């Protein structure tokens, strides 16, 4: 049967104008499908990689998703804080390997400020258990040091040594500023593709220091105000934190620890397993993802139906061609195969062109997607799932090709060898 292929190819080449358009329409639909597939995969990846290596996240009693949203994604706010004492108590348990306290609530030009300790740089992991790395400078040390996430630094144009002022509360409309106590940029983190990039990191001491005299929740009166120079005279141990991340010495103890936290007598707390809660959250988001995939599948179907239309339309013009082939010995079965070859070839070329377009678009748009959305679109070979999609499209092309092939087969039987056109 291999001798049929050059014939099908030559015949198709003879009609290259319409063939090209058909291939293009399939290619565009393939591009769309692969693009959506890759973007949603990368969104899911970066979503799932926001936190890793953390066994439990513990905060004041709340819903698990809410706790995850504010502690990891910096979305929304905690309704309650937890006491420093409870934190110390839990952190001191023998099965605990490390903890990272998180204190949220302030912001800088729309970016969240996170108060934490040096343990954050030591133990926080994202992606595939990658530690945080500094792109420039060093970790915070002094009370008024700040370490910027990569996006904060690049979007706001900050460099090491710049002084910045934090605002009380969140959101870009926060108007009450801690103007009397500016922070100095001492470090900038390398890009992670996670919410860390959009966070400013200061020490818990720093958070405490800028709130000295704010015990009532409002800016202090002039008489109570504590100047930056006087901060050293105060005890900067926090009363409360927002939440903390916890790593255990042995993962076997996770559920026992979770139970212990949830039953904690002194104060109502919630402990969540980040992986399980991430999954829960993704299932919520996944619906939109599925809808997009469905739409792009419909576009592929439209592309293939377009191909079907073109081939069916060409059948009448090609009746003579088929009769000539019959007269030189092509059997109706050969005619059938020729037509199948043609639709298979169109689908294959469409897939190949779509793949080429996909990688071209990836090369052009990946830096921008990374910058604008924190989406990392790496140049990888198509994954098994993408190959499967492509194979499926080709198979569908062949399947759809059976319809015109069957019509041509019937024509060939009916027309015999007569050439009357």
């Amino acid at each position, binding site marked *: 049967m291999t*001798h*049929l292929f050059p*014939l099908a190819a*030559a*015949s198709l*080449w*003879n009609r290259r104008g319409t063939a090209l358009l058909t291939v293009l329409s399939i290619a565009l639909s393939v591009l769309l499908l692969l693009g959506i597939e890759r973007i949603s995969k990368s969104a899911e990846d970066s979503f799932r990689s926001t936190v890793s290596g953390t066994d439990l996240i513990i905060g004041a009693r709340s819903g698990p998703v809410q706790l995850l949203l504010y502690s990891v994604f910096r979305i929304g706010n905690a309704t309650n804080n937890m006491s420093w004492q409870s934190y110390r108590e839990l952190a001191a348990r023998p099965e605990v390997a490390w903890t990272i306290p998180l204190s949220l609530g302030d912001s800088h030009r729309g970016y969240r400020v996170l108060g934490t300790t040096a343990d954050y740089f030591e133990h926080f992991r994202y992606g595939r258990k990658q530690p945080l790395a500094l792109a420039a400078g060093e970790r915070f040390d002094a009370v008024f040091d700040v370490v910027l996430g990569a996006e904060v630094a690049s979007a706001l144009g900050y460099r090491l040594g710049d002084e910045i002022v934090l605002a009380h509360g969140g959101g870009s409309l926060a108007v009450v500023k801690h103007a009397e106590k500016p922070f100095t940029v001492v470090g900038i983190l390398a890009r992670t593709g996670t919410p860390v990039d959009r966070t400013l990191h200061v020490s818990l001491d720093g958070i405490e220091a800028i709130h000295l005299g704010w015990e009532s929740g409002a800016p202090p009166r002039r008489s109570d105000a504590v100047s930056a120079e006087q901060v050293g005279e105060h005890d900067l141990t926090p009363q409360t934190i927002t939440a903390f991340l916890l790593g255990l010495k042995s993962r076997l103890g996770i559920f026992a620890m979770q139970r212990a936290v949830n039953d904690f007598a002194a104060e109502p707390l919630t402990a969540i397993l980040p992986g399980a809660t991430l999954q829960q959250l993704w299932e919520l988001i996944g619906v939109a993802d599925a809808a997009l995939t469905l739409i792009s599948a419909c576009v592929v179907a439209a592309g293939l139906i377009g191909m079907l239309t073109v081939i069916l339309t060409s059948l009448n013009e090609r009746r*003579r*061609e088929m009769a*000539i*082939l019959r*007269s*030189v*010995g*092509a*059997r*109706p*079965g*050969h005619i059938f195969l020729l037509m199948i070859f043609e639709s298979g070839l169109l689908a294959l070329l469409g897939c190949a062109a779509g793949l080429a377009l996909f990688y071209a678009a990836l090369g052009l748009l990946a830096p921008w997607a990374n910058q604008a959305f924190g989406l990392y679109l790496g140049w990888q070979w198509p994954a098994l799932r993408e190959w499967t999609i492509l194979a499926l499209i080709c198979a569908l092309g062949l399947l759809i090709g059976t319809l015109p092939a069957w019509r041509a087969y019937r024509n060939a039987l009916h027309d*015999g*060898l*007569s*050439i009357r*056109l």
Partner: protein
Amino acid sequence: MSDAALSTQTSAAAGDSTCIAVESLRYRWPQTERDTLAIPALQIARGEQVFVQGASGSGKTTLLGLLGGVLLPSAGQVALLGHDLAALKPAARDAFRVAHIGFIFQLFNLLPYLSLLDNALLPCRFSASRRARVSPHGGQAGELQAQAHRLLVELGLPRALHDRKVGALSVGQQQRVAAARALIGAPELVIADEPTSALDADSREDFLRLLFAECREHGSTLLFVSHDRQLAGLFGRHLSMAELNQATGQEST
């Protein structure tokens, strides 16, 4: 004529020297009331060059369809090289046709997107026996092509043209390519259906002379169908559809 009178008799056990043997042949197109074709008997020997004259509607095309095994007789028998075509399965009939018959049609019967050479080689793509007769020893890679080149040159198509697409050729040249395609692999029977009707008188004679010579060289039987009586004199044997066809109800098609 009653059906009984024309019902199948025994085949004229075709000898080795018989190419076409027709007996008590009748054909009626579906959904028509009368026979289009009725030929009591016709024998054509191998190597003969036969002219069949007939006006349009005389049943010529039907006869060719029956000889090629594209149509099957309503009654009677068509034997080609001793094989009853109706007894073969469709696939075997298709294979038999391409193995033993070369066709030349009136016009426009080349594939415009192939070169002269590829057009001429088309039957070899579909038939192993045609291929085998071009290059009997299993064929070195280039032998098929070499033989096709040789045949085309013999038919008056210079080598320089062979790799061009056929679209650029004159009608006369196209007909020679069609002849090469029919002749390649030396089929026992060459059927030509009005192949010269688009040619002027001079090219017509040239073309026929070449066709005769090639058929003689390959030992092919030539069945040449045309409405043009003037050509009859060039052939060894001359038949007329009007005499052959005993059907009373000829319908014009």
